[in-house]
């Protein structure tokens, strides 16, 4: 007998909610959880959603301006006993008063998401200076020297933003405007106006759990706590001007570095400089496309140039290293990984250390392999590959007992059902967008 379904309808926020609540065994034992994007193609409606509609017990439907028709169509199909829950998309404009459209996006071919600098990243003051004849460098300097508060009423922007959010949440079952208003200064709630961090998702999921009627438990408390550690959705972050941070008392914003797709991470000033010059590492994305169609040597050339242009982008370094290993260019791969380890420092994740371990093994550096694998395990205890590499590294150094212990752990992990990460890495997720790029140009 099929389980009743819980449908999460809306934008990527609802996808995160589905993934998060999917970690509650008490819930998945009794329900099938389904995420349905508000802009889904009709063919997906039939294949994935149709069977779940008739047995839907809870419908969490985000009210999006561009998903209204589909949402209305879905609501008509739901059984009478289904509990329908409405919520609005969450957003916060208050920290980003420079949003505008930049025509320079139209001048450059780009493979991903339509624009190299989406409107939330664009800066109307820098553009005004450039239009008046300033060089990009001068425009950037003028912008950085501006007194922002004299040209933008930040308090009014915040007041309007919260009022807008409250207005959209009127008569909704899940509301986040109060949480956002109370916490926006003390916690980083958004990476850009539309992309929440784990704090917002934790609150959203808490309300969803209450509506479903689950009793509080240690597992749920753990989940909500873990969610707060989630960096957030989206492939880019919009820098916050230091004066804006000072105005609102954003203690968490000092020294932040902001990710720009796979370009790397930049301080506010660095980002402003790159934006003024409209810098973007197109070669890297061209390389990805070449890689997709198997043209590895040409892709490697693109990545080599991309790494030269963006030496601090760990995404480029990792992609470069992976391909270099494949092509047998082990020394170049290791050099790229070394740079990445230095660049990422304490923020380096298990995947990077696994790559270092793999490369070390390839060049016969068994001690380094064991050490790197150990670092990976410290960050991700269930990394199957890390245990395998640790075992190999220890064994090749003659430490047979320790190697056997690691090998047993490796075998045990391999025998377990796949351990899905709590939240899909949003950086990897957005990569699928440019993999749809037509390669006719090559």
């Amino acid at each position, binding site marked *: 007998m099929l389980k009743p379904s819980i449908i999460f309808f809306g934008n990527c926020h609802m996808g995160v909610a589905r993934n998060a609540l999917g970690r509650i065994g008490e819930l998945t034992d009794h329900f099938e959880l389904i995420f349905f994007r508000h802009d889904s193609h009709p063919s997906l409606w039939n294949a994935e959603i149709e069977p779940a509609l008739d047995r839907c017990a809870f419908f969490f439907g985000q009210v999006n301006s561009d998903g209204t028709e589909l949402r209305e169509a879905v609501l008509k199909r739901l059984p009478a006993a289904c509990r329908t829950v409405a919520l609005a998309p969450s957003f916060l*404009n208050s920290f980003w*008063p420079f*949003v*505008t*459209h930049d025509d320079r996006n139209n001048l450059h071919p780009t493979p991903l998401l339509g624009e190299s600098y989406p409107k939330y990243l664009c800066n109307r003051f820098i553009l005004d200076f450039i239009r008046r004849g300033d060089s990009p460098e001068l425009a950037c300097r003028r912008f950085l020297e501006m007194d922002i508060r004299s040209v933008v009423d930040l308090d*009014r922007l915040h007041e*309007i933003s919260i009022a*807008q959010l409250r207005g*959209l949440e009127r008569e909704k079952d899940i509301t986040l405007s109060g949480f956002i208003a109370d916490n926006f200064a003390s916690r980083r709630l958004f990476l850009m106006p539309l992309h929440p961090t784990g704090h917002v998702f934790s609150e959203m999921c808490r309300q969803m759990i209450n509506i479903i009627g689950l009793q509080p438990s240690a597992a749920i408390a753990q989940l909500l706590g873990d969610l707060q550690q989630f960096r957030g959705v989206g492939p880019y972050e919009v820098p916050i001007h230091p004066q804006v941070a000072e105005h609102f008392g954003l203690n968490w914003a000092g020294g932040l570095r902001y990710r720009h797709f796979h370009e790397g991470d930049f301080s506010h000033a660095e980002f402003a400089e790159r934006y003024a010059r409209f810098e973007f590492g197109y070669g890297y994305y061209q390389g990805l496309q070449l890689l997709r169609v198997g043209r590895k040597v040409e892709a490697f050339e693109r990545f080599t140039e991309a790494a030269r242009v963006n030496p601090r982008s760990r995404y480029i370094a990792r992609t470069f290293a992976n391909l270099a290993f494949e092509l047998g260019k082990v020394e170049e791969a290791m050099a790229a990984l070394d740079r990445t380890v230095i660049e990422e420092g304490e923020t380096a994740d298990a995947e990077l250390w696994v790559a270092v371990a793999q490369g070390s093994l390839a060049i016969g550096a068994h001690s380094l392999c064991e050490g790197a694998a150990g670092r990976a395990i410290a960050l991700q205890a269930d990394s199957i590959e890390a245990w395998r590499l640790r075992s190999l590294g220890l064994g090749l150094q003659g430490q047979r007992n320790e190697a056997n212990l690691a090998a047993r752990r490796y075998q045990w992990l391999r025998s377990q059902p796949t351990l899905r990460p709590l939240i899909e890495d949003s950086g990897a997720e957005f990569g699928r967008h440019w993999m749809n790029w037509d390669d006719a140009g090559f």
Partner: protein
Amino acid sequence: MALVDAIFESVARVVASTFHCDPAIVRVDSEASDIDGWDSLSHVYLIMAVEHELKVKLPLSDVMECANVGELAALVRKVRAS
């Protein structure tokens, strides 16, 4: 009437400037769905721009209820008159 038209023209110019569209397509009945880039999020920037350009402070409860450019202009007119 001239003042009414002038206020609408000013608001329409702000709409066109905010959303980088041709002012000629901004009509009294133009809604968010008619103007590319105008959504619930960018509406905030439109309000800021209207207040800045027309030197008014609009009551938030009323401005959120404006369904089109004409209603927004009418609200500006009403606030100025009071």
